């Protein structure tokens, strides 16, 4: 109560200080929302690759980097490989330029794809939000990632035009906030035809059973060992990535990104905290006589320290709450503005909101320590001489 009246006594100064903290926390929240989004992408990637060894070709026929049936069989024959999932991965729209959520046409072989889903673990599995997987042998059908469906405003039963063909949408994937949100799953034969149609070299060579990449489904803890066996038994020219390698690389990328992103947010917040330090020192100077009176009537050092600390914590918390609220507005604004990309650019998680407000409170406390100690160490006789 006393604190609130002190605030209202110095409405402009307290308000500006809270605003300073709020601006810092706004930056922190927006940056944090970006970091959370990257985190989800990377977490999704990690989950996807937990049970998968990625196999790519580094060369092969005419250095087209394609995998051929005998390559797939060689991978399948390595001990510990339970299934090989093959893909033909192409950009969905080669003319789209930069995309926040890149869209891909992903040709999959349905029976192998479904078996891989069974083996991929709970988090590494793609689930349908609506519709159904197509039946083996069906052609020109598609299952859309959620971002693609939203961006292109397509639902089950609609026709998707891509790479000069039309596909009937039969299913929509659940949102993952990760890479598969930008996928269009189609029968592998269709994707292969797209590639062959657009490449005179492939037409000339007359090959018609290649894929662009493959995943060997394995037990997560055997990943490294199987990669070593695979490397030994396959002829050269393959790039193999074990689950551990991919997870580690993802972890490093995520740490680096989060440090960079949150670091800039933290700097903004620290600037706000310095304003709190300044305000609190002014408050101590202004209330010197009050402090003297309080000490004269028996306030202990702790009573005085607590009074000023609580005040700066409150400034921090109010700034934090205001900053997070403004940050949420900015995040929803940007997400609304970029919604035609089909995927949110920032994600405001409860974890981020909690961290931001807690952080603001702690920073308020830290900012209050020096002023509070100064107040507590004032000499009461000298303080009482002030009017």
């Amino acid at each position: 109560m006393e604190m609130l009246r002190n605030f209202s006594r110095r409405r402009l100064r307290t308000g500006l200080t809270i605003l300073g903290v709020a601006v810092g926390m706004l930056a922190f929240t927006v940056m944090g929302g970006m970091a959370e989004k990257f985190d989800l992408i990377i977490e999704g990637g990690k989950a996807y690759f937990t049970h998968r060894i990625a196999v790519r070709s580094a060369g092969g026929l005419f250095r087209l980097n394609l995998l051929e049936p005998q390559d797939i069989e060689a991978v399948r024959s390595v001990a510990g490989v339970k299934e090989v999932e093959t893909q033909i991965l192409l950009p969905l729209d080669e003319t789209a330029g930069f995309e926040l959520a890149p869209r891909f046409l992903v040709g999959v072989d349905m029976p192998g794809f479904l078996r891989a889903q069974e083996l991929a673990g709970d988090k590494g599995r793609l689930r349908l939000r609506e519709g159904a997987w197509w039946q083996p042998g069906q052609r020109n059908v598609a299952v859309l990632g959620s971002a693609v469906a939203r961006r292109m405003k397509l639902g089950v039963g609609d026709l998707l035009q891509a790479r000069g063909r039309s596909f009937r949408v039969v299913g929509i994937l659940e949102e993952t906030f990760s890479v598969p949100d930008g996928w269009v799953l189609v029968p592998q034969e269709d994707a292969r035809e797209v590639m062959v149609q657009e490449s005179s070299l492939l037409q000339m060579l007359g090959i018609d059973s290649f894929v662009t990449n493959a995943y060997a489904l394995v037990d997560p803890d055997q990943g490294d060992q199987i990669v070593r066996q695979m490397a030994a038994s396959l002829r050269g020219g393959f790039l193999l990535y074990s689950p551990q390698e991919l997870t580690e690389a993802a972890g490093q990328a995520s740490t680096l990104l989060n440090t960079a992103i949150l670091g800039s947010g933290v700097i903004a917040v620290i600037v706000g905290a310095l304003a709190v330090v300044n305000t609190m020192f002014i408050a101590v100077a202004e209330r010197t006589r009050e402090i003297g009176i309080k000490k004269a009537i028996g306030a202990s050092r702790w009573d005085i320290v607590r009074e000023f600390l609580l005040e700066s914590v409150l400034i921090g918390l109010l700034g934090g709450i205001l900053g997070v609220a403004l940050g949420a507005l900015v995040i929803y604004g940007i997400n609304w503005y970029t919604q035609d990309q089909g995927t949110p650019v920032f994600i405001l998680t409860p974890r981020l909101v909690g961290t931001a407000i807690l952080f603001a409170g702690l920073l308020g406390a830290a900012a209050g320590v020096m002023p509070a100690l100064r107040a507590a160490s004032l000499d009461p006789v000298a303080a009482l001489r002030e009017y």
Partner: protein
Amino acid sequence: MERVINSLQWPERASGSALVVAEEVTKVYPGGVRALDRVSLTVRRGEILGIMGRSGSGKSTLLHILGCLDRPTSGEVWIDGVPVTRLPERALPALRLRKVGFVFQSHNLIPCLTALENVALPLRYLRLPARQAMEKARAALEAVGLSDRMHHLPAQLSGGQQQRVAIARALVNSPALVLADEPTGALDSQTARDLLALIRRLSAEQGQTFVVVTHDPLVGQACDRIVTMEDGRIRPPS
């Protein structure tokens, strides 16, 4: 803190009717200013003692030392049997809280607290439960005749009312000793008379001991006994 205070022995000479005993108290400020020079003084229980003298005579310094706000360079002070000059610095806030009440010349009150909250402040520092503190504060305000101004902020009170709130606050935790530094200094003479009448009444009703520093002869008349200070010493009675 209580333990520190109780572990020290009661000196014989501070017992009986003497509430405060100051012995050979000297205060030299850095730079060599001798504010107090071997001052000895006894305050009896229940009396209103006036300390008079010109400004600069050392009366405020003496008051601060009696109130444990300041420490003497040499000499000893006992309050209610406690040898306060022998206590460590950190024991003094608790001692002030329990034994001493203060009334200053003006600007006594915390501006952003209501009259009631100002009076309850020492009880808050005593960690009294809020309801109990408010009840006691209310009673103290009633005793100074301000039951209709409890929820006013200091700025909404007149100078005399503010001083009465300060007296209520000084008395709320029943201290052994109330120290007042020019309590009427900022008041007109009629208001000052009313305030002095209040102090006299409280002293008579509650047996409260007051030490009042003043250079106002009006205040002097209201005291049971007067000592006069000059150049840091107590002038012998003429």
